[in-house]
Structure formats: C-alpha cells, structure tokens
C-alpha cells in the first residue's frame, strides 16, 4: 500500500542542512497496524506527514498503491484524501463552527455522497461510537475523549483504506486512550483498515502488529509483533 524509497528530508538553515529523515526505506502493506515510535524530535510526525502527502520529501520516492505520488498535484492529492486516506490528529481538529453530526458529514459532502447514504453512514458511526446523544453538540461541549471519537468517526466516514494518526491519544487520559486503541484494533481486524499511528506509549504500540522505531531520522528498528 505504501512504499517509501530512500526518503530524505532536511531543513536548510543558514546554509546548514538539518536532516530530519535519512535514508528511510520501508513498506506498509494493506491490513497492517503500524506504530511509529521514537524520542521527541526524531522525525516521527514528519514521516507521517510525508505519508499523508502533507509534506514533500526533499529526496526519494513515495508510492501509494503502486502509484508514484512523490510530487503530486493539488487535485490528485485531494482525490486521494477524499477516497483513500483518513487523518486523526492529536489535537482533534474538529471544526468549531460545526456540530458533531456536521463534522462527520463534512467529508461525505465533499465526496458528493447522496443524502440518504450520508444519513445512514453517519447514523451508523454515531451508533458505533456511542455518541448518538451528542450529535447536535459543538466540539467545545465535548470532553477530549469524545472529541477524538468524533475525529475518528470523521476520518472513517469516507471509508478510507488507511488511517494516519499522529499521537491520537496524546491529550487523553489512559482510560480514554485504551478505548480509542481498542477501537483502532477493531477497525483494523474487522474492517481491514490499514492504520499507521505515531505514539510514545509502549502500551499503545502493543495494540498494533508492527513497530517502527526512529531515532535521529533513521529507522533503528522494524519489529513485527503479535
């Protein structure tokens, strides 16, 4: 599904290249649940952003579903976002002016999903995540855990093949974090959704079936578990 070949990323500062990623070559297959770990500043978020095409690598190539997407035009990128990739953020990033229902509906609107189909999918998601009662509330009326549930529901609404999550539980208490992780595990097992998450917690990483460890921009370890 994702193939990275010799990815490099640096920021030039006063003529000095500060490497964030070096010689990163890896492959993520359909159906995997990958956790990226490593110390702060190691380049985890940068790697995930590259996978999500939010940033471009300085060097190297990136294949998404066998297609070279290293330098992709705005329109093609947006097509991928609409149909294949879902994002989950540490800070949730729900749209404050939209209710829970509308937040989940947003990606479907951009995909031109018919209104009947939209209704049933959202109802399904609300039901599944147990937030039916909250559907008319605005994000600032929800707890952090609830907001992240909405964030995940939104990412799932468009039925993506892969979810990219940057520290999805970073702002949450452990009980809520567990709940989210269970959810990811379930999505991965039952719906076959590929998941790539960045996490600092060994425990969270344990929910997945592969751990990539990065240090100073280099992959130090790539471990299959479970």
């Amino acid at each position: 599904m994702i193939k990275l070949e010799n990815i490099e990323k640096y920021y030039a500062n006063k003529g000095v290249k500060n490497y964030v990623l070096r010689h990163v070559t890896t492959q993520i297959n359909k159906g995997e649940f990958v956790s990226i770990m490593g110390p702060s500043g190691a380049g985890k978020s940068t790697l995930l952003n590259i996978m999500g095409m939010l940033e471009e690598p300085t060097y190297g190539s990136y294949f998404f579903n066998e297609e070279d997407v290293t330098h992709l035009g705005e329109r093609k990128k947006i097509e991928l976002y609409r149909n294949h990739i879902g994002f989950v953020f540490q800070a949730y990033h729900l749209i404050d002016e939209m209710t829970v229902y509308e937040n989940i509906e947003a990606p479907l609107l951009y995909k031109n999903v018919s209104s009947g189909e939209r209704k049933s999918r959202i109802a399904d998601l609300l039901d599944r995540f147990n937030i039916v009662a909250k559907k008319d509330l605005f994000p600032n009326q929800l707890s952090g855990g609830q907001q992240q549930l909405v964030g995940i529901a939104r990412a799932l609404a468009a039925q993506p093949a892969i979810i990219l999550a940057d520290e999805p539980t970073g702002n949450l208490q452990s009980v809520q974090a567990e709940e989210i992780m269970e959810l990811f595990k379930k999505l991965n097992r039952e719906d076959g959704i590929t998941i790539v998450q960045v996490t600092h917690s060994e425990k969270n990483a344990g929910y997945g079936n592969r751990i990539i460890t990065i240090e100073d921009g280099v992959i130090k370890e790539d471990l299959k578990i479970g």
Partner: protein
Amino acid sequence: MFKINLKIALRNLWKNKTYTAINIGGLALGLTAFILLLLFINNEKSYDTWDPQLKQVYQIRERHDFFTPDNKPRWQHITDSRIGNLLKEKIPQFSAVTKIDNGWGNSYSIKIENKEPILVSDIKNADSMFFKVFPYEFLYGDEKTALSKPFTVVVKQSFAKKLFGTDQVLGKQISVLAWRGDEAKPMTITGVVKDTETPETVAFNAMTHTGRREVDPDRPQSTNYCQVYALATQKLDTTNLNKTLLSTYITFKKANFAKREIKFEDFYKNGYNPGLKAVPMTEVHINPTVNSTWLEKIKPLIAISLFLLLISIINFVNLSTAQSVQRAKEVGVKKVLGVYKQQLVRQFLNEAAIQSFVATLIAVVLVEILLPSFNRQFDINLSFWYNNHLGTLLLQLFGLFLLITLLAGFYPAWIISGFNPVKVLKGNYETSFKGIALRNALVILQFVIAVTFIIGIGVIHLQNEYIAHKDLGFDRSKLINIATNYEDNFVERIKHIPGVQYVGTTTQVMGNSFNVPHEIKYNNQEYNLNTVTVSMETLPALGVEVVKGRIFGSQYKQDTVNTAVLNEAAAKLLGNDVVGKFYKSGKDEFQNTFQIVGVIKDYNNESFDKAVLPTVYKVTELGGTSSTNNLLVKFNTSQNKAVIQAIEKEWSKLYPNFPMQYTSLEAAFKKELQSGERIMQIMLLFSVISVALSLLGLFALSAFMAQRRTKEIAIRKILGASDLQLINMLNRSFLILVITANVISWPVAYILTRQWLTGFAYRIDMPIWPFVIATVSSVLVAILTTSMQARKAAVNNPVNALKYE
C-alpha cells in the same frame, strides 16, 4: 454542501456580531451614497425617452453669437426662426417641423375668470405643429387640430388638475400673461395630454398657441430667435443629415446676405464659420449648448461617493483577512478532508456575498428613507420603487452587489483558502498569516481618504465663512428687488409709502444681471468697460461708498444726459485721477461725450465668485432704460412686512392680472451662497461617515490584533510588563500607519483644495489650521480607539489566556 457552508457562515457571522455589523453597516452606507448617485444618473440619462418616436425627433442647432455669455459665436439651440420654414421646404427627410418660443425663464401669470391671478413656470408658446413632432398622448381633445387656431392652449393632465381640480377642462378658458403689462386675452383649452414618464427637455405645463410663432420678421436684417425641432420619417444618419443641413444653411445665408448687401466672406471670418446641425432628441440633454453637462457638475459627488464605497470595501477586506485566523483551522481540516482550494474560495466568497447582500438590502431601505431630503436638496424628483426603469435599476443593483462581493470578498477568500494545512494544524498560524503588508497599505489608504476629507471640509468651511462675511461693497439689508421695470407711475405711488426710502432700477444686481459691454475712448485710448444703467436713487439704495466726486442726483440736470460714475476698478484702469475728465463713446454721428463725476467703491453686482469688472454707471433717462426686471426698493424702517404689503396693494391696483414678484437682496445673496453650502453639507456628511467608518475599521482591526496576541500579552505580563507598556506596544504599529497616512494626505489635500479655491475670484489664502486639526484629531482618535482595545487585552488576567491555550 452549500447548505452546511451557509450554516457555518451564519454561525461565524453571528459569533463575530460586532465585526459583521461593522462590515455590513459600512458597506450599506457606501452603497447608499452610490445608489443615490445611480438614481440621479439614471434620471439624467432618461431625458426624452418617454416615447419611441422621440428617436426620430431632432433639435436644430445654429452657430451664432446672439446672447452668448462671451459674445463669441457658439452652437446654440435658439436659432433664427426662418430655419423652421427652410427645413420644411428643403429637407424632405423631415415630415414635420415645429418652432417654440425660447422661454427666458420668467414666470407667467395665469388668470382664470375672476379668480386671483397665480404665477406659474413652464408655459411655452409654439406654432401649430408642436404635437405633430412631439408624440404626446392626448387624453382629451384632438391632437391634429388642437393648436391649429390662434389662442388655443394644450395643458398637461397634472396641471389641469392643479388649476381646476379635474382634468375635464376641455373648452375652458384661461389667460396667460408673460409680462405685467400684457393684456389678459383668454385662450381656449383644446387638449389635455398625459404627463410623461421620464423628464423632458421641452418641459411645459401648458403649451399655448398665440399664432405669433408662425410668422418670421419681414426685414431681412432682423432676426427672431426660437427653438426648432423636427420629426424625421425614420431614424437618420446624423452625419449625412448634417452635411445636407450645412449646405442648405449656407445657400440660405448667402441669399439673406445678398438682400442685406453683406458679403458672405466679410461676415464669416476669423474662425466664425456658418453652422447648422441636428442633434437627436435623446442626446440633447447629455450635450447641452451653454451650460456644463450634468456629468461635469456631479463629478465631485461621484468621486466622493466612490471614495466612501472604497473605504467600506477596505474595511471589509481588512476585517475579513484579520478574522481569517479564526478560520484557519477550518481551512486546514477541510483541506485534509479533500476540499479543493477553489471550493474554499467559493465558500468564503459566498460569505462575503451574504454580507453584501444584506448590505444592499439595508442600502435600499436607507435610500428610500433619504430620497425625500435628497430630492429637496437637489431639486429633483427621484424615486426607487416607482422608478420607470425598475428592472434596469434592479439589474444595476445586482451588478453592484456582484462587484462589491468580488472586490470585498475575493482577496480575503484567496488568503484564507491559501493556508497551508500542516502549518495551521501544527498550531502555527503566524507564519501562514499572509496579507499583513497589504492590510497596512489599505489602512493607510483609508486614512488618507478620511484625513483628506477632514482637511477639505476645513478649507471649504473657511472659504464659505470668508464669503458670507465678505464686504460686498453694498448694503443688502432692508433692500428688496421687485421683478418689474421702472415705471414712473408705480414708482411715484410707492415712494409715498412711509418706510420707503429709495426706489431705483439697475441692469445689474446680485441675482439678476445683464452684461452690456461698452467701448470708450479716453485720452485717445480705447477701453472695454462693463456698463450698468441705473436710475437716480439706485446707488444710494445700494448704499455704495463714494470714493471721489459725487454720485447722481436729481439736482444735476445733466446727469440724465452725459455724466458717468466709475467704480474703482475702472478708475484704476483709466489712471485714477479721472473725476471731472471726459470720455467718448459710440461711433461717427452717434458719438457722445460723457463727464466722469465720481468714483465709487467696487461692489459685487454679480455672483461673488466673479471679480468685479471695471464698470461705468450711467443714467440715460430720468427713469433709466433698463428693461431687465429689477426695481430696487430700500426701506428706512424694519417693518418690512407692512411696507411690502402696502407696495403690493399699489401693484394690484395697477396690474390686477399679474401678481407681484420680489426677493430680498438678503435672499438673493443666500441663494448665491447655496451651491457652496450644498457641497459643504454633502462633504461634511460624507466625511463624517468616512471618518467614522475608518475608525470603526481601525477599532475592529486593533481588537483582532490584541486578541491574536493574547497569549503573548499574557506571557509578557507574567514577565512583568506594565499595562501601559503593553498598550504602547499594541498602539505603535497603528500609530505609524495613521501618521504615514497624514503625511500622504497633506500634499494630496493641498493640491485638491487649492484647485477648488482657484474657482473663486475672492478666496482665502491656503490655511494651515485644517491640516493641523485633521492630523491631530486623526492621530488622537486613532490612539484612543486602539488603546481601548489594547487596554482590554492588557488588563485581562493572564492566567485565563494561558489556560485557554
């Protein structure tokens, strides 16, 4: 999708109520001024479009020098009356030609049976062809025969109702008197026509037909001037038509000159060419012959209202881009959810559209509210909903709405939708916060306009004050001007009324003057002077100041024959020491010698923005020969009302069929002041609005800045910054903008106001105070405005801000 975006838009607008209100309110004000102007322009453009047949009607213009303001040949719409017949005979393309007396703008007295006479304007006299050329719709009467007999009259429906209370007036009789001494000869109403839907160049309440207009003068050397209009069988090619007209005219002129034994070449020389042309009726109003065009007149207004609109658009742009920080997250998230930039641009444009739509609606309401006073102010009759071209108007409004939406919305939409999602989602708004330079430039521009307005009002105000209190050289108090000629009988009667001090006539007085150039020979040199003919008591009535010698008096018998008084300007021109000297005027056997008996101080006998011309005052007969309708009456009492009543009583004994018309010189003076005051009032209104809008914009902008820096302020506070230090920090950037704006507006305002002042013969020196006041007040108010916001941010408890993050 549209629905949800609409919802988001409304929620956002509601969340930022204050700014939304400022945005919409500002736009609404800008639009209001613009719509009023639009109505005015539409109205001007709609002249003579009330019937499709008018496309085939032409106004005939001739080039000649009769009655031009500078005695030089010009194109004029009053032509030799013989042109009418000429066209009828020689131009087959014209199926009908009509001649209309040129009204000289005076009022007519209308008398119905034994009722009191009333004064009305716009009574015209035409030949029998008028209604064959102008396609008026007859409600009563037969258009073919309506004016075929002498002493018939056709009235407008509205006028019939005004006179009689009904439009069923066919066969009734009215008398129309152009002058006080006219005989009251009854005319029969033979037709009632419908009022037109759009304004007319040949506007009339009643069109009379006395029969006088049918005849041309017998003697070839005398000419009678009138207006000529022709109806063509179809719409003609004007260029070709005018070639034919010119050659016909030249043949006609040559024949006329042959009878008068003048050589064509001698007459037309030194750039004076013969000229005759036809102007399509629909273009007549846009191309007036003597006056400046209406477009010329309202240019300053157009400029002012464009500026006002610009200021409100700038507010919109500034506030929207400033607010964009709040929308950054939405944009970032939407982008990773798969939204095209184009879709985002459209979304934000729609938000702008909602606001400008509401603004347009409010503007329409404001226009409705303001129209009555606007109409009064400009002496016109505009309406919005009862507009004849409501469709066009709505279309124009829609266009305006689109334009405003694009102007105000596009840039912010572009900026907001350009946010980079990674940066935004990392919480890094600052680096993706574009458009600060442009916003600063816009704030400067806004203040340049506002400050220039303030300076402008200052200068206009000082100039108006100067003129209002300027010594005109004559005493306008207790002085009235009756619109009549000097008639001994009447004058003798009113002189006996207690309270009347002097009675005199003059050819030139403020409000009604008639220029007569006068060539004299003095010390063997020729001079061109302006002549004013007065009667014995005129100069005392005006209270002019005698500088040297004496003014006219009835004890000097020769005063009625060959004495003259000069004003100082003329005396200076002739070399000062002139009293007692003689000058000659006239040619050959008509040459006369005049003795200069006195010099008076210059006084303004015309509008005060015209310099006083070197003038010679003469009394030719005891009563003077003036026939320019001025009779000055000076009172030596302040019981004006009683005296005027007594005069009116004498008047109605002599002229029972014509009401007396008079103005006080004070009123004539006020009228002269009026145009200046009008501009002043509008400038004042617009400047207040533009300054208020600019300040509102600044207020909102500083609020945003303070809000954006809440966290920074909180941290600085924890580090020990005082409130004052923080306020200073927040103020500085705005202060720089406002000061820059002032620096730019000084030269701009200087150039503009100097330009304006050169239009006055008597003007103030460029004052410094308006500049100083504008700068000081704009800086002070700006500081006050931003400080209010900065203070709010600064005195907040820092913990709140940090916890919030």
